[in-house]
């Protein structure tokens, strides 16, 4: 686990972070109103109290980088440049929405300009996909970083493991933000994961991780920016655990009565926007006039965006048909944007010897040193060698493994190999 170095932000950056958090919250407040007026077709999720994570992490990316938001990452979409009307129309299933009514919520993307991959509902699925975008981008020489988010709950899916492990083996330039908001629907994190810090999951993949206060937007930004820079420099994927709290129910239908009152009160006192306003005021970056200006700006923008969304028609029924295949004429144009010499990946330059090289083999660094209970054969293990020489047979491998334990382990292994027929 690493701690991010503090860094200086420009005045504009400080104010951007504030603006996007406010925009994030106001967009969601507007949608609650729409929901209460029955104008939202499906469910409505909220990121109340978690805005600092979506905004701070996405703000750490460059324009060319790729994101895949989850349902509570409206803030990331806004930072990327998605207009609020698109978010409103998605929820209202309007014909002018990015998916033209074929999907809802934040399930939409933009391959060409904003570099957003649409999520699907199945938690964790974005992780290998964004690893693939990262690997693909590296292959094309684009120097991009990819980012997605996952919940404390979603971090227990199989595909989280498969995706992160694969990303790690490939050293993919990929940053994963784990939003630990303490709840997965009605299940508290203690019932999901037997770990104090979910960042510890990173150790299983040999990748670095950070823990950050998810309600402190500057801390989130700093940490994410450092992770993004390191990933871009080729250090491989990085996991960031942002500690926070889901202030509302799982979605609008859920009053979340299972959440202890004290817990809610504790976190309500740590509202990320209120905390940040205090900071900005103390640093003389924001005053009452500046705040009022932003209030008005948001009001004007969202009134117009909402009006546009409400005026958009529902899709015509027959639009349900078609669009299953990309025929080449009517859809996204598929082309790779090369930013390296193609000759590097085509023969003869691409030609290699099809053999594994095992770096460090024989150096004694490969398998936990001579003290490891089992050796890969790449460790000199002097003690073993000496004893073997003395007795003319194998000595017991290490202190930690008693005679019986070794025997047991060997037996178990033999049994297992008998069972494993193929």
């Amino acid at each position, binding site marked *: 686990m690493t701690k991010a170095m503090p860094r200086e932000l420009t005045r504009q950056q400080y104010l951007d972070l504030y603006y996007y958090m406010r925009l994030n919250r106001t967009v969601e407040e507007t949608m609650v109103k729409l929901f209460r007026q029955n104008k939202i077709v499906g469910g409505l999720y909220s990121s109340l109290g978690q805005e600092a994570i979506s905004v701070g992490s996405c703000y750490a990316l460059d324009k060319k980088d790729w994101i895949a938001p989850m349902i509570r990452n409206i803030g990331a979409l806004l930072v990327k440049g998605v207009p609020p009307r698109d978010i409103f129309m998605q929820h209202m299933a309007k014909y002018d929405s990015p998916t033209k009514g074929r999907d809802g919520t934040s399930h939409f993307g933009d391959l060409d300009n904003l570099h957003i991959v*649409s999520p699907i*509902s199945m938690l964790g*699925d974005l992780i290998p996909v964004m690893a693939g975008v990262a690997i*693909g981008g590296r*292959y094309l020489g684009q120097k991009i970083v990819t980012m997605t988010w996952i919940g404390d709950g979603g971090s227990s899916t199989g595909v989280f493991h*498969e995706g992160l492990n694969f990303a790690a083996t490939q050293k993919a330039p990929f940053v994963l933000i784990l939003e630990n908001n303490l709840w997965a629907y009605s299940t508290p994190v203690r019932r999901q994961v037997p770990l104090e810090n979910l960042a510890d999951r990173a150790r299983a993949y040999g990748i670095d991780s950070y823990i950050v206060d998810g309600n402190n937007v500057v801390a989130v930004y700093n940490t994410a920016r450092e992770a993004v820079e390191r990933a871009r420099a080729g250090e491989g994927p990085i996991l960031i655990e942002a500690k926070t709290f889901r202030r509302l129910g799982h979605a609008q239908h859920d009053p979340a009565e299972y959440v202890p009152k004290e817990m809610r009160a504790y976190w309500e006192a740590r509202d990320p926007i209120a905390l940040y306003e205090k900071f900005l005021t103390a640093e003389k970056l924001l005053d009452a006039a500046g705040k009022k200006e932003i209030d008005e700006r948001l009001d004007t923008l969202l009134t117009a965006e909402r009006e546009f969304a409400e005026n958009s028609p529902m899709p015509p029924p027959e639009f349900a048909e078609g669009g299953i295949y*990309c025929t080449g004429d009517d859809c*996204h144009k598929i082309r790779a944007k090369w930013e390296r010499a193609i000759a590097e990946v085509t023969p003869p330059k691409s030609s290699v010897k099809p053999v594994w090289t095992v770096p460090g083999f024989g150096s004694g660094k490969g398998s936990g040193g001579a003290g490891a209970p089992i050796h890969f054969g790449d460790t000199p293990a002097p003690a073993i060698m000496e004893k073997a020489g003395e007795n003319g047979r194998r000595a017991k491998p290490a202190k930690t493994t008693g005679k019986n334990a070794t025997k047991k382990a060997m037996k178990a292994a033999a049994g297992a190999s008998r069972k494993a027929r193929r």
Partner: protein
Amino acid sequence: MAGGNGAPTNGSATGGTQITFLEAIRQAMFEEMERDPTVLLIGEDVGVYGGAFKTSEGLLERFGWERVIDTPISESAIVGAACGMSYLGLRPICEMQFIDFIVCAFNQITNFVAKGHYLWNAPAPMVIRGPSGGGVHGGPFHSANPEMYFVHTPGLKVIYPSTPYDAKGLLKAAVRDNNPVLFFEHKFLYRRIKGDVPAEDYTVPIGKAVVRREGQHLTILSYAAMMHSSLEAADGLAKEGIEAEVIDLRTLLPLDEQTIVNSVKKTNKCLVVHEDTKTGGIAGEIAAILFEKAFQDLDGPLVRVTALDTPVPYAPTLEEYFLPNARKVFTAAKELARY
């Protein structure tokens, strides 16, 4: 098999040659990667080892580590990552070491890959391929024919060829297609079937069936390994004066309804042979299509010769009983012809 630099033995200078089904697949990948640097191969043991069945032998040697990617045993990650790559305009080919393991990536394929274009205009030009099918005593987990799970998934294309010519031409077409294509390779055919392939570049169109043998007494529809059993049965039937029209479906999604309906309108009888289990197999879908589009033309029941509705059993005696074969096709066809 592979030359010094991994080039296929069927070089452009030698003209058309007889090659195995397996070599056809290898050549298709090799030539597509040669032609287009956006084509990559990703899967378990596809690189240094050249694939469990050696379908990618020589590819790493020629195209290098970035284009031939050995992965951990993570089918969801393979498919997910390939999908992500495809969003950048790359055209990855995923190998499932055995097609049985494709269901480990079922969610990625059916929810992520298949729905992307319909929902958000995101085509995923990728191929998922691997060895399938029984008859080699692979047992219940190395003999699967899982094609129908995916035929039931809008957004995918599903190919299951029976000849080296088609395997090569269809795999090339799959790589060039803008949509996710599942490509099933019947492993019984890998080294048992040889056929001519032209020296020059060619593709076989996806979604087109082919008439392998003309006849007027009944239509036999089949694909993959059962295609060969059906042709063998048709030879036997001919000796008894029954001329069967044998059609190779080749692509199961989208299905070539026109060729099927045209033939049945001519012969008025239809037998479907597949190695997949009976319930929910493509024969049921074909029956429905014929009832919709050729009901008046049918002079007999639609007959199915398929595997049993059980897992694929291991013992040779059991597996032989489980699978359809030329004799079973012959018997059923003869009865139908007499109907």
